[in-house]
């Protein structure tokens, strides 16, 4: 199982802040996970419609979308940060 977290407008479009899922066969990096999620419903498709507007973190560290993921990882999706 991997824990997937969503923040800000990505959370709103998907309609939940987190979920756990078994990484499907053929999903070995973040980009492949996004393709898999997009097929799960219109909320996901809308959230990832402009993939370049989405950032990700794996186990609480900023990472690019070609990063390898595995069961047990915490994968977070969010827009570019706007704190400060």
């Amino acid at each position, binding site marked *: 199982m991997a824990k997937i*977290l969503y*923040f*800000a*407008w990505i959370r709103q479009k998907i309609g939940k802040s987190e979920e756990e899922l078994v990484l499907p066969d053929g999903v070995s990096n973040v980009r492949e996970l996004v393709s898999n999620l997009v097929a799960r419903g219109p909320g996901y498709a809308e959230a990832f419609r402009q993939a370049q507007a989405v950032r990700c*973190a794996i186990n*609480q*560290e*900023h990472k690019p979308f070609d990063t390898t993921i595995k069961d047990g990882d*915490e994968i*977070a999706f*969010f*827009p*570019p*940060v*706007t*704190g*400060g």
Partner: protein
Amino acid sequence: MAVQEISIQSEDFDVSIETKALTEGCNDAGAVVTFIGIVRGDNELKLMRLEHYPAMTAPEIGKHIDEAKRRWPIISVRVIHRIGELKPGENIVFVGVASAHRRAAFEATDFLMDYLKSNAPFWKFEERSEGGNWVKASGKESEEIKRWR
């Protein structure tokens, strides 16, 4: 110097208490620089809501504090970021650095603010009378950190 360096909190902070704490019990500090970020009330902003990624926020800020300590001779550092609902005019963020000399304190404070704005996982939602919107990153943030490379 065993004071807590990072706080993520909904309550306000007291600038004078935080500033004083940076040099408490320390004789070698010659400079303290503090930065305070405030909610700007432009375009009839009613309320700002700040969301963050709790498990990541403090570790991410901590990495940049560690980097600042490698680059400058910092005596003490304090970062406070508020979350939740904030009104125009309220404090959002405090960054304070004490050092022996001013240049290190100025630069380390500037560095920490740049990395906080570009990397710390916070998101602002603005509420106005005609509705609300998530604040868009200007793109300036990733440009501004280039000068530290």
